């Protein structure tokens, strides 16, 4: 079956622009996670959805970051007024049930803010 897909794969934005990153989880997976990965670092948790409910957004670095999953499937991570420090790879992962289950990752979106 299809894995987790993300789009776009690469995004270049001018500082101050808004961006939207999309994640299509594995079909039927209840849980969806967003991570931010800086170069040479491990992924860092941003937020977590169970179906359409956002149960944890403690990792979002500022109020410029917003995530939604309105129908419990596809999710969008939006970054408003992008800053250079937002440049990173944004990874999406999904799991079949709760957070103790194995998470399967997408290929990531590489964001570069100029």
């Amino acid at each position, binding site marked *: 079956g299809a894995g987790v897909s993300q789009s776009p794969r690469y995004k270049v934005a001018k500082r101050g622009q808004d961006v939207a990153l999309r994640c299509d989880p594995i079909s039927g997976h209840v849980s969806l996670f967003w991570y931010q990965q800086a170069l040479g670092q491990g992924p860092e948790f941003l937020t*977590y959805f169970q179906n359409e409910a956002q149960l944890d957004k403690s990792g979002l670095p500022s109020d410029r970051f917003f995530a939604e999953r309105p129908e419990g499937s596809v999710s969008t991570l939006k970054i408003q007024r992008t800053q250079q420090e937002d440049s990173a790879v944004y990874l999406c992962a999904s799991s079949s049930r709760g957070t103790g289950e194995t998470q399967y990752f997408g290929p990531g979106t590489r964001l570069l803010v100029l």
Partner: protein
Amino acid sequence: EDQVTQSPEALRLQEGESSSLNCSYTVSGLRGLFWYRQDPGKGPEFLFTLYSAGEEKEKERLKATLTKKESFLHITAPKPEDSATYLCAVISGGYQKVTFGTGTKLQVIP
């Protein structure tokens, strides 16, 4: 707060030279420890999940083990295609988030 420390940061092996990667963790109530492989420009690829001390899992040339304080990823007779960054992650207690280490970058030379 959960902490995960991986060592070494980088490891260079000759093809066929077996070794081990270490993942030390500090958590309150481990619910699971995960090993992932990440190739450049790609997302992490799942390898293993371990749930309790004493548990071991194997896949081809890789074997993961777990104690109450650390996990090891043993690589037996590695091949160049095993070159990648290996990430360790934990989930604990009632928290929803997974905490990753910074990874070990493995290079296997023919």
